[in-house]
């Protein structure tokens, strides 16, 4: 009757939340932004997303098979990387570039570092950075309704500051009817998804709120043309703050660390936007802050119960 009792170390129950469920929630909360992308940029946007997801998942599976490791694509983390990379690409990007970017993200940035949890930078952002350096024109060609044009932040950078009228109206930024990457333009869709992640306890409010607040305050102090709301809604800030900077692996583990990390992201973003060569600084800010995570984690170790801080 009791011949097959399992012997194991306690505890013997589990919260039920698994990596797969977490990634599932992330995918679900990315859905609204993708739908907005498809709505404003057409079916082509969905094709890019599909190419990135399929390439990411396949690269991971093939790499793990070749390395004789257990295949872990069912944890959905490769799919999340695929979606995030696609959301950071212009809808007109040639598909082979999107595919190569995906391979780079998964194999060089994730698997080379030990797979899930081992990477030191966000794979999707690193993939995008590689693509931006390799194919600068394709990566900065923005089309909306078949007409190419500049993104709102590029307009500010180019110095149309004299006429704020040339900038698209704020409402277009809210719904996402502006030039930009597939998944970054619709503020309302991103807030919906980000809100879902916070509500479900998948991410904490700390990184997105602090990140966005720091950018808002600094844009005010630096006297940016579009104003605070414009600065927050334009570009990749919302996508970055809710979905990229909150990546567990490449962000600090403690509450204090997360606040420092997010403030750093905000500072760098504002500086790059104002003084840098690029109109947008979210990707590079997060990538740079990713590299400071071990340092921040070391500095913000929690005080052990009863321990007196020296």
């Amino acid at each position, binding site marked *: 009757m*009791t011949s097959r009792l399992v*012997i194991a170390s306690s505890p013997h*129950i589990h*919260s039920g939340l698994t990596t797969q469920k977490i990634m599932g929630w992330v995918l679900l909360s990315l859905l609204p932004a993708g739908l907005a992308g498809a709505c404003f940029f057409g079916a082509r946007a969905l094709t890019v997303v599909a190419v990135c997801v399929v390439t990411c998942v396949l690269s991971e599976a093939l790499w793990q098979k070749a390395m004789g490791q257990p295949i872990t694509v069912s944890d959905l983390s490769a799919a999340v990387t695929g979606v995030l990379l696609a959301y950071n690409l212009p809808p007109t990007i040639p598909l082979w570039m999107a595919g190569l970017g995906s391979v780079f993200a998964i194999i060089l940035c994730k698997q080379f570092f030990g797979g899930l949890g081992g990477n030191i930078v966000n794979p999707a952002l690193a993939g995008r950075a590689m693509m931006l350096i390799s194919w600068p024109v394709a990566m900065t060609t923005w089309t909306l309704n078949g007409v190419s044009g500049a993104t709102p932040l590029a307009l500010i950078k180019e110095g149309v500051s004299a006429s704020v009228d040339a900038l698209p109206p704020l409402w277009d930024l809210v719904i996402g009817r502006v030039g930009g990457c597939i998944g970054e333009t619709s503020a309302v869709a991103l807030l919906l998804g980000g809100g879902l992640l916070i509500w479900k306890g998948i991410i904490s409010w700390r990184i997105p709120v602090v990140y966005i607040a720091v950018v808002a305050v600094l844009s005010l102090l630096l006297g940016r043309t579009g104003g605070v709301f414009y600065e927050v809604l334009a570009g990749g800030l919302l996508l970055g703050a809710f979905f990229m900077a909150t990546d567990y*692996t490449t962000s600090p*583990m403690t509450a204090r660390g997360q606040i420092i990390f997010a403030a750093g992201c905000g500072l760098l973003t504002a500086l790059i936007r104002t003084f840098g060569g690029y109109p947008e600084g979210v990707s590079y800010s997060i990538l740079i802050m990713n590299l400071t995570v071990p340092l921040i984690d070391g500095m913000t170790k929690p005080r052990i119960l009863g321990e007196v801080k020296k």
Partner: protein
Amino acid sequence: MKLPSFEGGVHPPDGKALTAEKAVELYQPQGGELIFPLLQHLGAPCSPAVKRGDRVLRGQKLADSDAFVSAPIFSSVSGTVKDIGPRMTIPGSLEECVVVENDGLYETGPDLLETLGLSRPAAPEEYLKVIRAAGIVGMGGACFPTHVKLAPPEGRVIRWFIVNGAECEPFLNCDNRLMLESPDILAEGLQLCLSLFPQAEGIVAIETNKPESIQTMSLELERLGDPRMRVAPQEVKYPQGAEKMLIRSVTGQEIPPGALPADVGCIIVNVRTLYQIHQALTLGTPVLDRIISVTGDVVVSPGNFCVPLGISVRELVERAGGFSEDPVKVLAGGPMMGISMRSLDVPIVKGTSGILALSERSALLPVESNCLRCGRCVEACPMRLVPSNLDHLVRLRDYTAFEQAGGMNCIECGCCTYNCPASRFLTQTCRDGKAAVTAERRKKGAPKK
């Protein structure tokens, strides 16, 4: 109103409904073997005080030790000593045991107060002696000898005498039922203990998921009319009943690493321990029985049973109707800190609070995957350690770094593993790390910190 509490912790489903309403059933087997391991406490093992073939009475001492940190073992039945030798125990190891053949008569010998030649009830200056002689240990599971705990180092003023009725471990109701059914004994026991610590408040700490216990204990303390005693309701959060957490919640004090509760003016005892103290001081009864919750989704009639120590887990499970299907895990204790057993033919000891049988549906049978660095273990750790980092260091066998990172402070509560989406064996590796560091210290002969 938000109750003051500790940081961290988790909220596992409590499973208490299975046995919360079940009154304690007295079960005294009429025959068979009872097995008494010689080590049922933290400290020195006992040596047998009887030999094979001896007739023993209920309450007769079977084994004792001269060491200060130790506690004697008593026969819970009358009968004959059948054997003294190794038997399988709950952790699955063979331990030296006294085996008594039960004659079913429950013939009781002279009580402790009589044997020690003391008045009834004992005078306060004799309390520690009686408690030592009664074999009382921390019956919440830690099994630390109570007479040692009640003798704080010189110069420590005890301001809080905390009775631990938190019972934060899911599924268990033995403490809850004791508070509901014997509140008078607990209240009087607390009063007796307070006579040892004139400057202390007596506080009964109970989680708010046991409102009836809170009410019953409050009424009882009121009845005694001693202004030094009160009930302190606690937030329902695991591991509220862990010593350091409960002290933090009740008093706001944090025990420094390596220090004792007495260093921050606290003494904390489990409700069952308090019950035993009362029984020893007033009636001269040693530790003979205890209440055990037999529960879990595959137990036919879950319940709370008061049984003589030494009966087998198998007999207790059969008393609860047996299993409706094969369990995959049978635990001594609750699901968060209980020990999984390889066999049911092991004896109940002083620290056994429950028997929990889990089906494959409810037991954690994890497959580990990569750490995501999500920080859920850090959030959950009530000691505010970084479990994922400790896990990493133990796997690297870097025990020096493990120690530096505070690994020895781990209380093995299981919150990190419970919360881990990658099902990392965090509690287990911490346990391994602690064992390795302890072994290393012992080898070096370094004084234990």
